[in-house]
């Protein structure tokens, strides 16, 4: 299935783009992150949370095909 991944703030600095769509099997969030670590090794040094369909999820959440977002530390206000 195709998954759109959105990158923000310092994460987008590492990936050098704000979003991309990749083809990925419907496995777990952790497997997608492992895939991204290979593609963007510098991500391993970054702290981020993961959202699927705008809700925070854990590594053990199953991918649904909904939008994934990598969210660096929040800085509102």
């Amino acid at each position: 299935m195709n998954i759109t991944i959105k990158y923000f703030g310092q994460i987008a600095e590492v990936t050098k783009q704000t979003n991309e769509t990749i083809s990925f099997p419907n496995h777990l969030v952790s497997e997608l992150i492992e895939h991204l670590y290979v593609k963007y090794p510098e991500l391993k040094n970054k702290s981020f949370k993961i959202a699927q369909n705008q809700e925070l999820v854990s590594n053990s959440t199953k991918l649904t095909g909904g939008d994934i977002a990598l969210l660096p530390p929040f800085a509102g206000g």
Partner: protein
Amino acid sequence: MKEHKHKNVFKQGAIPSEFIGESIAKHQTKTSIGAHNIFLGQVRADVIDGKTITAIEYTAYEDMANAKFHDIRETAFEKFNLTCMHIYHSLGTVKAGEICLFVFVSSPRRKEVFKALEYIVERIKADVPVFGKEIFEDDTHQWKVNN
């Protein structure tokens, strides 16, 4: 779709003091209100390793952020006796000394607005996906982290 049903909290650039003043004036017709409380977040010119921050450039995961603001608003109305509530957050560049967050709560009585305002601001800091690039005077930058 989920992302279209929420009010847009974001404003491009700094929040002008005139806008804040007009917001207050608009409430003069709502005469059940006996107490307003306002929080204004202002960009601080922190000095880090001898370099001064001149501005913060805000970005956000806007759809998710507006959904979170909506949830914060709903929860605050459930928890506190509020007549109305307004939240505005900047996107883009806000210079040191300018306002980047405006939260305005109103109630018949004062005790509710003190509690509500703190609750809302703390939740915005913790739960809303807004990101801040702190720009130094020499055009280098670092990323702001709420604590």
